[in-house]
């Protein structure tokens, strides 16, 4: 089972996230996320990968983390990279400020109003399919 990250492991993942997810004109960089360290810990605990698998992937991570060294790591150790990049990007997209920038609700809980389906029904989009003739086969259709 996954376990809590040590501080050095968290630092390694932080450095990886900084390389994988830089800032854009509209989106923050991973290392600009206020609580990224906490989110990385939650992500590592949630992913369910075996503790040994995470430790092994981190052990292979280059000491000098750069775009080029991570690109090589991804090519040479794709399974290890998949684990760590999932944790890094998973933590990033857990951040409230990232979801907000994407227009993605932090809470997706949105019960429907009773009128919502009625409005769709009255939009006219259902009319062609309601007007279709029955299409199911019966035994009388056998040759």
């Amino acid at each position, binding site marked *: 089972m996954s376990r809590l990250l040590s501080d050095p492991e968290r630092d390694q993942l932080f450095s990886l996230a900084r390389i994988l997810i*830089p800032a854009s004109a509209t989106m923050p960089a991973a290392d600009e996320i206020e609580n990224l360290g906490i989110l990385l810990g939650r992500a590592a605990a949630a992913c369910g990968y075996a503790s040994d698998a995470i430790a092994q992937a981190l052990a292979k991570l280059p000491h000098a983390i750069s775009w080029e060294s991570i690109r090589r790591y991804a090519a040479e150790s794709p399974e290890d990279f998949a684990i760590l990049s999932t944790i890094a990007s998973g933590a990033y997209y857990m951040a409230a400020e990232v979801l907000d920038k994407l227009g*993605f609700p932090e809470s*997706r809980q949105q*019960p429907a109003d009773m009128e919502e389906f009625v409005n769709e029904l009255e939009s006219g989009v259902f009319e062609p399919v309601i007007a279709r003739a029955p*299409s199911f086969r019966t035994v009388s259709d056998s040759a």
Partner: protein
Amino acid sequence: MGDSTLKADVVIIGAGPAGAVAAHTLASQGFSVVCLEQGDWANPADFPGNRPEFELELQQRWSWNPNTRGRAQDYPMNLDSAEVVPIMFAGVGGSSLLYGAMWMRLLPSDFRVKTLDGICDDWPIDYDELEPYYRRIDAFLGVAGMGGDPAYPPQDYDMPPHPIGRSGLRMARALNDLGWHWWPGTNAIPSAKFKKMAKCVRWGVCETGCPAGAKASFDLGYWPHAIAAGAQLITGARARRITVDALGLATGVEWIDRNGTEQHQAAATVILAANGVGTPRLLLLSETNQFPNGLANSSGLVGKNLMLHPNNEVLGLYGEDLQSWKGPAGQLIYSMEFYETDPSRGFYGGSKLNLMPVPGILRLLENFDSLPFEQRWGAAIHDLGRFAGRAMSWAGNIEDLPEETNRVVLDAELVDSDGVPAPKIEYTISENTQRNLDFALDRMTDMHRAAGAEHIFRQPLWKEAPGHLLGTARMGDNPQRSVVDRWGRAHDVPNLFIVDGSVMVTSGAVNPTATIAAMALRTAEHIATTARDTRGIS
């Protein structure tokens, strides 16, 4: 072995949909019912879907694949020879805890494949015989849908359907332009509070457990009522074999409790509701000198004809904000345009296609994993991430034809956490099914193109889906060609019944839980009405 408990009228193995319906039906009619369930109750608060890290939890802990989850309650499977993984979940409610609650009936033609298409076998019953049971289950569970679908004989629902949302509307217009069938999704997900279930709040994570308790998984939809009617449910109870007497009648079930102690539940009637893998596993485990090839297996068909409904998917990314996190998932709309056999397509059978939301960002980004590193990471990730909320997914549920070479057998070495031999799955996608898969993939692509998708991703096969486990103890009138009769009664063992998807003769192409539940209701009522013929039931 522990002391035998009091003899019950009925012992049921498995507390999934079929076991729940059978338990409620028989307990309501005054029978003493004991149900043995190897898993536990699930708490909706345990499901990950309302937590920010929910997609990460799906990687392992809440994986659909029991081998990946690795819980003691689930049994492992040898999948070395399986092109599709038969996913399942052990617990009260069974795999319905993780199902999408897409609530579809078989069509009349599904019961008459031999008559209409000249292949496979007809069922010993037909649509009209099952229709009243479908209707009663729908009403009991509060199925939400809109009647009048021209792909079906007349049907209607008490609960209004869910909105189809921006995704559904956009795709519906595209299908109208193509002249293809679609219909708003029918889901066993209440659109208003109903009995023990809350109103759907559209988390969009139905297939990983509803965190709001707003899905008709059978722990909510049926078990509270079965227990109120007097059924006794024992969790942490792993059935090990069905016991028989010298006359060849079932006498009960040998099972292992949480402490590893063997117990025996005596009963006048045994009902298997352990799904299309667990049921043949138990029948094969129940071999004796009297039944050397496994119980109820004089036909040699126990475990054979496994049908899994291979699924595929086409994901579309759009420029418009589709609010694609909004559930239910569940199906927003479905299409039966390609359901019925059309010889011009070059294969038998068809597919049911369902449009689903895409509530997670990681799932969206996974589609780009094959891109070169520099197009996937760095600045590129934001170009890809902008499609969050702008995706919709067509999934194809593909009819699988019965093949005796697709089967469940006992593994020679692998055992579960109680040391009971585990199943081995031998399953190959047939040429007919592959053609069906390919055809459905192309049509779902056409749908996204017609709807104006900016990017389209084709997934030719979901290896770990959909958990439709069918056909391994088929029903029929001929004991040489079937395991159970038209009522689910084993030809070889008159007080042994099977009520899960094992009994299905052909698979159709729809999600099978509605049919399994209707069949379980029909069988349970038959058991009740014919109780005098069955030894011991008063």
